[in-house]
């Protein structure tokens, strides 16, 4: 006789999962398949709550969590094969850009696109179709992928390419992990002759100043991004633009080891803060210091890759600084004709006291063929907001309406609160994507809290 198993009993593999914003937790069983066969078995034996792959949990909302599901952590899928002749790399879906850069940079290569953190996996970069400071000229991460391997909802291992299987390939790029579990991807690299970046820094006096400078000058730069002081009355900021420095721009000393690369986190924000580090006082101090530390104008400064691309990665778990209520990031893209939405958003959020230390403005270039890819030509603003602010839900809903009416949309990797109606209206190719997804996953094995919340 066996003891009855309680339906309320916990299993050892259960984990509370949230996104980077630490809001809306759900519990799932986390498994780490060792091989593709293990992964196929997990998909074939999936329970009614389905399966979802999770990388390093840097999406802000509920994209990489799925209550009651089997969440697959591809920590064992970390192969890395560099083809220096072709200038490509084939990487396991569980490899982080952090690990890749440690191998690639000393070998004279850089990833085609990096978001503001290198703590993302290749799988996550494809699923969210991430963008970086070079979007206005070089597009998203997915645009540089030439092939990927994926296990679909029927347990079949498939190789997807933009030429051979365009529908499935582009449904997976930006598909938030809902078309299958990617195990590996091959993507093009940027050749480097040095590991330093030549950076032009300019303080900007207000929004008009920064936006006109970006409109006029961004095309001359590979990388460009502006930090906006959302606390300051005029929304002053710091515009940083640059490109990889050629080796002959380096000092004699630097030329001795031009591809040296070191990326270290310097501090961890402690786990428990009574009311969060982020409050009106610390915010003003932070933004003031950030603005002051930047030169009024300095051109041709050589910076390291971590300093230029990943300034927030110096503090591990900085997301804890917002305290127990967590935070969210509101990121929209709007066409050039709707640049005014940037100012309106900053005003509306500061009106309710939603203060943000991290506010980033960037220009987007052309879209790619992926139906759910976020970037579209024009402006994108990303602004962090503590989740506990009174009246935030209403203000963001009204901003959603404004973004939608201007032909814009929100980034799924950041979203944690938009409505299903906003999703469907702002991504008009959603139903086209759903048809491809349904064919790749006829039983609906792949799902997430985000997918349920937005009826994807």
């Amino acid at each position, binding site marked *: 006789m066996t003891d009855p198993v309680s339906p309320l009993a916990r299993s050892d593999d259960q984990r509370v999962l949230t996104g980077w*914003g630490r809001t809306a937790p*759900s*519990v799932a069983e986390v498994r780490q398949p060792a091989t593709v066969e293990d992964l196929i078995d997990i998909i074939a034996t999936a329970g009614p*709550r389905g399966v979802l792959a999770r990388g390093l949990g840097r999406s802000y909302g509920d994209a990489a969590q799925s209550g*009651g599901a089997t969440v697959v952590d591809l920590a064992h899928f970390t192969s890395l094969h560099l083809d220096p002749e072709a200038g490509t790399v084939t990487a396991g879906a569980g490899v982080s850009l952090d690990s890749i850069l440690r191998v690639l940079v000393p070998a004279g290569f850089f990833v085609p696109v990096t978001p503001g953190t290198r703590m993302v996996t290749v799988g996550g970069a494809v699923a969210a179709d991430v963008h970086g400071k070079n979007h206005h000229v070089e597009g998203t991460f997915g645009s540089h992928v030439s092939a990927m391997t994926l296990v679909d909802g029927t347990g079949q291992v498939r190789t997807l390419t933009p030429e051979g299987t365009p529908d499935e390939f582009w449904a997976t790029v930006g598909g938030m992990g809902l078309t299958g579990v990617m195990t590996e991807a091959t993507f093009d690299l940027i050749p480097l002759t040095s590991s330093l970046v030549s950076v032009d820094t300019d303080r900007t006096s207000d929004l008009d100043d920064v936006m006109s400078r970006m409109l006029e000058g961004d095309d001359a730069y590979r990388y460009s991004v502006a930090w906006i002081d959302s606390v300051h009355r005029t929304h002053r900021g710091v515009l940083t633009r640059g490109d990889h420095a050629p080796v002959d721009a380096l000092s004699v000393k630097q030329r001795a080891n031009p591809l040296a690369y070191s990326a270290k986190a310097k501090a961890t924000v402690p786990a428990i803060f009574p009311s969060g580090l982020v409050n009106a006082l610390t915010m003003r101090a932070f933004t003031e210091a950030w603005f002051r530390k930047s030169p009024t104008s300095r051109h041709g400064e050589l910076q390291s890759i971590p300093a230029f691309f990943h300034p927030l990665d110096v503090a591990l778990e900085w997301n804890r600084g917002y305290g127990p209520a967590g935070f969210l990031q509101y990121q929209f893209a709007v066409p050039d004709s709707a640049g005014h939405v940037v100012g309106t958003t900053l005003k509306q959020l500061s009106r309710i006291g939603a203060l943000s230390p991290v506010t980033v403005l960037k220009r987007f270039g052309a879209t790619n063929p992926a139906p759910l890819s976020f970037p579209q030509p024009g402006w994108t603003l990303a602004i962090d907001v503590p989740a506990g602010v009174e009246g935030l839900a209403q203000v963001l809903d009204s901003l959603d309406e404004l973004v939608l009416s201007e032909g814009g949309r929100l980034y799924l990797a950041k979203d944690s*609160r938009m409505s*299903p109606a906003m999703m469907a209206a702002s991504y008009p190719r959603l139903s086209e994507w759903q048809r491809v997804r349904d064919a790749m996953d006829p039983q609906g094995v792949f799902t997430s809290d985000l997918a349920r919340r937005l009826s994807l």
Partner: protein
Amino acid sequence: MMDALGEPQSVLVLGGSSEIATATVLALPRARLRRVVLAGRASSGLDEAAATLTAAAVPGVVTLDFDATQTASHADIIDGIFADGDVDIVLLAFGILGDQAQAEADPSLAVTMATTNYTGAVSAGLHVARRLRLQGHGTLVVMSSVAGDRARRSNFVYGSTKAGLDAFAQGLGDALHGSGARVLVVRPGFVRTRMTSGLPEAPMTIDPQDVAAIIVSALRKGRETVYAPGPLRLVMAGLKSVPRPVFRRLPI
């Protein structure tokens, strides 16, 4: 799914005619709400609750036949509701007050009170807990009562059913700890409702809307136990320490 700002998408009320439950649904943020299931015995009270919510523009209100005392039917009914989609908040709000003197005279009435308030809640609560555990998120709100904190001469049959329910709900909350599902135990004092109409009002009497506001705030803060009104916590702590020879003489 509950979103990052605590906006629920779906609510289930067991005991759909409950005025406190209706007030709670009205007090919840509703910008993302798309399904409200009022489960209860077919009655004018149930229809009235649905009409009230719909008139207040609460979206997706439906009623469903559910009888707390028919425990054999609970599995199918609750499984059916969850099969149609995740439920973010379940309000377990059924219960009967009964008359103490009548129950003393006719123990079958006392049995009905116990069957509804305790046995029915144990059955429904376990079925809901199983489904919340499976979906990995969600909160079960259990309407207990201060009457369960200490049995009083004037209503100990009702009080004992709530004492049992309260103990059950606390244990269930502990069983679900770490599962993503949570239990919120609500202990109201005297609330002005149909159930209490005609009874003399006790001190600290409140309206269903007041209880609703306390529940919504407790949900946002992730609390495990709340009194309504809040200061009743202190009153009950005091009463619980009163020696029995004194307590039984108190005019409460």
